[in-house]
């Protein structure tokens, strides 16, 4: 029974836009990117975080698989970090379709998408 897991367990993935030349990362590296502790890709470009809706299955997957932080606390953490830094918090979209739309205009995006991730993105494997 333990192998079954939640329904969304295998249906989402960390994804980046095609201009990001990364195909695999350690879970700790991904956690640091999603929490803003690391904010640049290896080529020096700023990580553009676009997050799924806080009440979405994609966010639940990110929360349990990568962050170890409930979505509402994660959202508060992002606001607190932005408040401290005097910057705007990462974009949290209202629907999954918005991630696809907004990523067309922004390079170096890191996000979470349902599988398959679709055109313009590729999956980042979790080592």
């Amino acid at each position, binding site marked *: 029974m333990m192998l079954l897991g939640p329904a969304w367990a295998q249906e989402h993935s960390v994804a980046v836009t095609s201009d990001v030349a990364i195909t695999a990362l350690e879970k700790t590296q991904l956690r640091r990117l999603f*929490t803003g*502790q690391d904010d640049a890709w290896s080529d020096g470009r700023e990580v553009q975080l676009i997050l799924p809706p806080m009440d979405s299955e994609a966010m639940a997957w990110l929360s349990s698989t990568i962050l*170890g*932080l409930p979505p509402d*606390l994660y959202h*508060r953490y992002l*606001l607190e970090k932005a*408040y*401290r830094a005097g*910057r705007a918090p990462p974009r949290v979209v209202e629907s999954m379709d918005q991630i696809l739309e907004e990523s067309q205009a922004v390079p170096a995006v890191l996000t979470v998408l349902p599988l398959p991730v679709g055109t313009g993105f590729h999956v980042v494997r979790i080592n």
Partner: protein
Amino acid sequence: MLWSLLALLTASSMASEGPWTTSRGLHNVYLGVMGERFRCFEAKGASNAACSSGIPLSAPVAKTGAKIFYRTGLGDRTDVAFSVPFVQSFATEPTTNPMLSSTTGIGLVEGRVRQRLGKIGDVGVAAATGVRTGAAHWDTRGRITNLGEGSTDLMAALYLGGTGPVVGRFHTTSMDVRYFYRLPLQQSDSLGRIPGDEVHLSSVSTFAVTPQLGLGLSADGFWRLWGEELDLSRLGQYGDDRWAALRASQLKLGGRAVVYPGERRPYLQLSVMRAVWAKNNPVDTTQVELAMGMDIGRRK
């Protein structure tokens, strides 16, 4: 009487700011109200809340006040801040001692410029230089119920801090270390500049209990690096600067509750601190502060 020659030396409350500089175009405004009370001076350097070996005043002294703190960005990594407290200090029981007369006015006015330097691992680092002055309460510096010692001091500071997830929650932790070069009020043959320079340390660590509420622990201390011990025969030579001449130190520990800001809701913070150690300074200070912060302007 001995107590009549003792000073109100409680350091002005200054919560740790951390290394997070405010960006250009953004204005942070904090309004705080505070109250504190003490009755016992400790001369030897001890934890002595019962005042068993300390020197009790004939009447407890209280200080209440309000403070405005303003900070704005000069660039993406540089900000400037000012704070102005308005304070009243008074005895809480009837007394005819003029040293305990009620004093009302402007406390230590502070200003500083801060530069974010970068990160060491996950710890952000910033440095600042600034000035604080007690010129506005110079005339009443000789009272026990003074608002400060009337001196003007130059400051250099280092700010450290970080925020990150920990065990299913997140923390925000910061520490400020400030050195005050105090411009001399008097010159002592044996001690040199009076008052002595000071090191201040302020630290706070807050954990998010829920998305709306954080709870934390804080520490606030200062150490004056040289000065006289509590010896009346020697302090008398300094006149109204007798309190500034003391080699005073105090360490306070406490707790804090933070209501995190929302999109349109200000930041609220309640702090309670209690002196746990002092030398030539009040050892039973209890301090309560309620502060509200808000951002005006646009984030990048």
